[in-house]
C-alpha cells in the first residue's frame, strides 16, 4: 500500500510537472481519447474536428511546443501565423489512421465528466488515467512477486525500483496506450505465475486469456504475448502433462487445458488489431530490413538503453552526463550477482527465476525482431517498448543486486541501499528534466 501510495504521488507529480504535449505522440493519443469522449464512439480513421484542432494548435503555442519539441524534430519553430491544422507544421505525428486501442476508451472515461473543459485540463485528466493504471500495476507487481515466491526484501526492492524508475514513471504518467498494454502483460504474467505455482486454477487461466486479449486490444508492444503464451503453454502442458501430474486424469487435463487455451487465443487474437498487425509484420518480415534506413544496430541498442531509463519529452530530454553510466554499473553489478553470487539471502524457486528471464527474453525478442526486420523498425529504438517486461526486469535487477551485496549486509542495508541508490538516480534525472523545462 505504501509503495502504491508513493507511485500515486510520484505519478501525479510527473503528470503535473511534465508540460502538456511533452511526451511521445501525446498529441495523437490524446486526440483519439478526446474524440471518443466527445462523440461517444470510435470514429474509425479520425478526421479531426476543426474545433479540436484549433484548440490543440493554440495550446501548442501556449505550451512552447515549438521551442521544446518542434525545433528538435524539424529544426523549425511554430509558424508566426498559427495554422489551423496540426499537419500543416507537424507531419511526423498527428493522427494514426484507423488505429484503435482500448486504452483510448479508458482515457475517454476520465474525460467524460470534463469534456467541456479546456484541452489542457482534459489532457491532465487523461494523464491521470495513466497514473491510475500505473498504481494498479505496482500493486499487481507486488502480487506477482509473491506468487513467484520472492523473499519480502527482494519483492520490496523490485517493487520500489518500479516505483522509482524515472522513465517508467514518466511514460506511465502521460497519455499513451503503453500503460494499459503493460498492465495487460502483467495480468497474463500473473496468470502464468499462478498456474506454475499452484497448478491448474480457473483464475490463472482467466488471467492469461484476459490479460492477453486486453493487451492485444491495447498496443502492438503486447504482440509478443501470442508467442509467449504458446511457449508457456507448451512448457506447462508438456511438463505437467508428461511428468508432473499425479494421475493420468490430471495429466490429460494438463495437456487439454493449455491446448484449448491456445486454440481459443489463436482464434480470438486473429480478430484483434494487434493480432492482425503482428500477422502482417510477420509476413513482411525480412532480416536486416530495419537496418536499411541507415541506422546501425549498436545505435539502436544504445538509444533503446538510454530511453529505457531516463529520456523525457519526445525522448529528446536526457539525463545528465554520467547518469546512464551509473545505471549501466548497477546493471553490471546485477549480472555479476547472478553469475557469481556473494550472498544467497535472496533466493527464489528456480522455475520463477527462469520464468521471469524467459518473459523478459520474449519481450526483448519480439521487439528486436520488429526493429531489425521491418522498415520502420529503427524508429522504435525506444526503451518504453520493453516495458511489458518491466516487472520481471525489475525483479532480476534487484535480485542481482541482492546476490552481489556481500553476505554480511543485513536485509535492511540490502533493501535500503538499493532503494537509496535508485531514489538518488531518480532525483537527479527528474531534477535535470525539470531544469530543462522550468530552468528559464
Amino acid at each position: 500500500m505504501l509503495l502504491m501510495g508513493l507511485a500515486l504521488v510520484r505519478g501525479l507529480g510527473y503528470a503535473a510537472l511534465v508540460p502538456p504535449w511533452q511526451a511521445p505522440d501525446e498529441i495523437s493519443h490524446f486526440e483519439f481519447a478526446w474524440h471518443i469522449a466527445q462523440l461517444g464512439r470510435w470514429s474509425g480513421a479520425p478526421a479531426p474536428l476543426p474545433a479540436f484542432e484549433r484548440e490543440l494548435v493554440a495550446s501548442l503555442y501556449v505550451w512552447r511546443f515549438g521551442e521544446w519539441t518542434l525545433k528538435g524534430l524539424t529544426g523549425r519553430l511554430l509558424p508566426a501565423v498559427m495554422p489551423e491544422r496540426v499537419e500543416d507544421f507537424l507531419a511526423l505525428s498527428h493522427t494514426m489512421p484507423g488505429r484503435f486501442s482500448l486504452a483510448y476508451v479508458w482515457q475517454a472515461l476520465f474525460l467524460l465528466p470534463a469534456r467541456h473543459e479546456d484541452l489542457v485540463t482534459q489532457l491532465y485528466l487523461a494523464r491521470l488515467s495513466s497514473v491510475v493504471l500505473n498504481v494498479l500495476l505496482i500493486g499487481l507487481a507486488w502480487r506477482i512477486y509473491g506468487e513467484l515466491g520472492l523473499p519480502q526484501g527482494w519483492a520490496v526492492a523490485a517493487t520500489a525500483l518500479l516505483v522509482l524508475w524515472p522513465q517508467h514513471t514518466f511514460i506511465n504518467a502521460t497519455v499513451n496506450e503503453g500503460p494499459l498494454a503493460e498492465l495487460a502483460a502483467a495480468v497474463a504474467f500473473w496468470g502464468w505465475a499462478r498456474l506454475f505455482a499452484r497448478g491448474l486454477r480457473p483464475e490463472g487461466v482467466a488471467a492469461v486469456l484476459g490479460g492477453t486479449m486486453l493487451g492485444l486490444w491495447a498496443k502492438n508492444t503486447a504482440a509478443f504475448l501470442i508467442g509467449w503464451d504458446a511457449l508457456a503453454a507448451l512448457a506447462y502442458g508438456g511438463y505437467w502433462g508428461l511428468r508432473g501430474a499425479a494421475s493420468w486424469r490430471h495429466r490429460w487435463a494438463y495437456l487439454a487445458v493449455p491446448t484449448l487455451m491456445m486454440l481459443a487465443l489463436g482464434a480470438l487474437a486473429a480478430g484483434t488489431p494487434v493480432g492482425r498487425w503482428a500477422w502482417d509484420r510477420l509476413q513482411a518480415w525480412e532480416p536486416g530490413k530495419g537496418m536499411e534506413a541507415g541506422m546501425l544496430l549498436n545505435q539502436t541498442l544504445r538509444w533503446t538503453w538510454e530511453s529505457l531509463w531516463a529520456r523525457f519529452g519526445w525522448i529528446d530530454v536526457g539525463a545528465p552526463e554520467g547518469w546512464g553510466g551509473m545505471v549501466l554499473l548497477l546493471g553490471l553489478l546485477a549480472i555479476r550477482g547472478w553469475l557469481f553470487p556473494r550472498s544467497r539471502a535472496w533466493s527464489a524457486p528456480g522455475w520463477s527465476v527462469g520464468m521471469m528471464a524467459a518473459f523478459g527474453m520474449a519481450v526483448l525478442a519480439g521487439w528486436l525482431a520488429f526493429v531489425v526486420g521491418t522498415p520502420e523498425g529503427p524508429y522504435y529504438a525506444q526503451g518504453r517498448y520493453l516495458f511489458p517486461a518491466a516487472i520481471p526486469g525489475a525483479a532480476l535487477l534487484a535480485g542481482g543486486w541482492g546476490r552481489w551485496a556481500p553476505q554480511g549486509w543485513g536485509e535492511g542495508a540490502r533493501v535500503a541501499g538499493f532503494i537509496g541508490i535508485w531514489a538518488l538516480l531518480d532525483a537527479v534525472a527528474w531534477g535535470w528534466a525539470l531544469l530543462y523545462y522550468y530552468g528559464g
Partner: protein
Amino acid sequence: MGSRGRWALCILLIGGLGGALGPYAMAVFHTAQGAQALAGAVRPVFPDRLAPAHGVDADRLQAAIAHLQAALAWDPRHLAARRLLAQAYAAQNRPREALEVLDRAAADFPDDPMVALERGDLYDMIGDVEAAIREYERGHVGSRRVPLAVNLLKAAEAQVAQGHLDQAARLWQRALALDPGNLAAALGLLDFYRHLGDADGAAEITARLRRFGPEAVAVPVDLDFRLPRAQGRAMARLVEEGLWDPGTLERVVAVQLARSSGGLEGLMLERLLQEVAARRPELRPWTFYLAELAHRRGDLGRAEALYRTALELHPDLAVALRRLGAVAEAAGTAEGTAAAAAFYWRYLQAVPEDLRGWARWAAACAALRARGIAIPACAEAAADRPAWGVRMEDRAIVAEVLGVPAAAVVLGENRVPNGGFEAWEREAPAGWVWSDMSNRPPWSPALFLGGAETLEPFAGTRAARVDGLWAAPEAGRKEARAGFWLAQPIPLSPGLYVLSFMYRARLAPGARVGVWVSERPEVLFAGERWLPDTRGAWRKALLIARNEATDGAVRPLLRLWGGGEVAFDEVALRALQGPLPAAPPQLPLVVVR
C-alpha cells in the same frame, strides 16, 4: 493505529480532498451544464468566432449564462467557463459584457491565443479596428485571417481619410502578406506607389494584379461578407483601370461560379457578384450570373426568375433560354417538360450548332410523346434519323467522311477509361492527370485551373473543365497550355482508329483547343490537332488516324492553349474495323460537327 484511527484518517483524507477539489468539481459541473445549454440555445453564425448568433432560444441561453456564472463563482479562474460565457454574451450581441469576462481570462492566461482571438472578435463587433488588429495578431491570427484582413483594410481606409497614405500602405502590405489574393489591398498599394511616383513599385503591383494567382480567384470560405465585397469592388475597379479586360473578369467569374457555388462559398460569391454588378452594371449581364449561381446552388425557383429577368434585359442572350429549359426540365412534371422543350426549341433557333441543346430538346419531346402530349415545339422531333443525331454518331460521321455506307463501318470497344469523366479523385478525373505547362521554363506565364463541370455536362453528371484565366506569351518561351491527360497509355495494334469526344469552348483572342495523343508520327499522329471555338455550344470532334507501329501506344491529352474556358466529355477511342471499300483520304482527319 487501530481500526478507528484508520477510519478517522480515511474520513479526514476524503474530507480534505473533497474540500480542496469540491469548488473545482462544482465549477466543472456548472460549466458542463452551461455548455450544453448554450449549444442548444444558439445556432452560431461562425464555427470558430464570437459573434451574434442566429435562432437564439432566450430561456436556454439565460440558463446557460446562469450556470456559467455559477461556475465562475466557484472558480473565478475557470478558463472554459469564461470563454463560454463570453460566447453567450456575444451571441446576444453584448460584446462589451463579453469583453469584461475575457479581460480576466486574458490576465490569467496572457499567452493563450484563443483568448486573444476571441477578444479580437469582440473588438471587431464593437468596431474598434485598432484593438481588433492588435488582439488578432497577439493570438497569432489563426483562423481569423479574413476578419484581420478586413480590419487592416478598414484601418488603411481610415489612414487614407486622414491623409496618411504611408501608414495605409503598411496596413495594405500586412493585409497582402496575410491574404495574397486580396485585390483591394494590392490596388491600395498601387495607389500608394502612384502617389509617390514610384514607377517600379507601381509596375510590380500592376504585374501582380494582371498575373494574379489562384488565391485571387478563390472565394474565402468564411461567413464574413466584408472581404468578398471588398474583392468585388476591387474586381470592378481593375476593369475600370484597364488592368483587367472584361473577358478576364468574365473568366474569373465563370471559374468562381464553377468552383465556389456551394455552401458558404456560394453565399460569399453572391455578395461579390452583387458588388461588381452594382459598381459596373454594364460590364456583364450580371443577372444571368446570379441566376447561374442560384441554379448551381439548386435554388431553381430563384434561378428561373433571374434567367427570365436576364432574358428581358438581354433578349439576345440565347444561353438563358437553354438554362430556362434545364430549370423547367428539372421540375420533372409534364408542364415542366413541355416548357423545357419550348425553351430548347427557341434556343436551337438561335444556336443550331449546339448538340447538347438538340439532345435535351429531343429528350424532352420524347418524354412528352410518351405521355401522349403534342406541342408545336416538338413537331420536328419525331423524325427517325434527324440531322442533328447524325452529327453526334461516330459511325455516321466516319461513313460520311470516308464516303461509305454506315453499315460498312464497324467500330471496336471504347478503349478510354472514364472517358465520360464521371468518376473523380480529388481535383482530377479518375484515370486522368492534370497537365499544366505554364509559368516554369520553357513555358510562358499563365493561370490555368482544372475541375469538374457539373451544371451542363454533355452527358451524365460531370464533364472535365479547363479554365485559362490569363496567359501572357513571352518571347523565347513556349505557349502556355493545360488540360487533362490520360494517366496510362493505351497500347494499339496497327490499324485505323477513331478518337472522338464532345467539347465546348469559349476562347479568348489567340487561344486554341488542342488534342495530342503521342509524340510519334506513326502512332496516330504527333503534335497537336486544333479545334475551333464553339462559343459555348457543345460540338462533336472526331479524328481518324492510323497506327503503323507494332508497339504503338497513345495517351490522349485534351487541353486549352491560352485564355478561355473549355469542357470535354464522352471521350472514346475505337478501332475502325472491317473491310472498308474506299481507301481513306489523307490521315489524320479532323472533323468537327
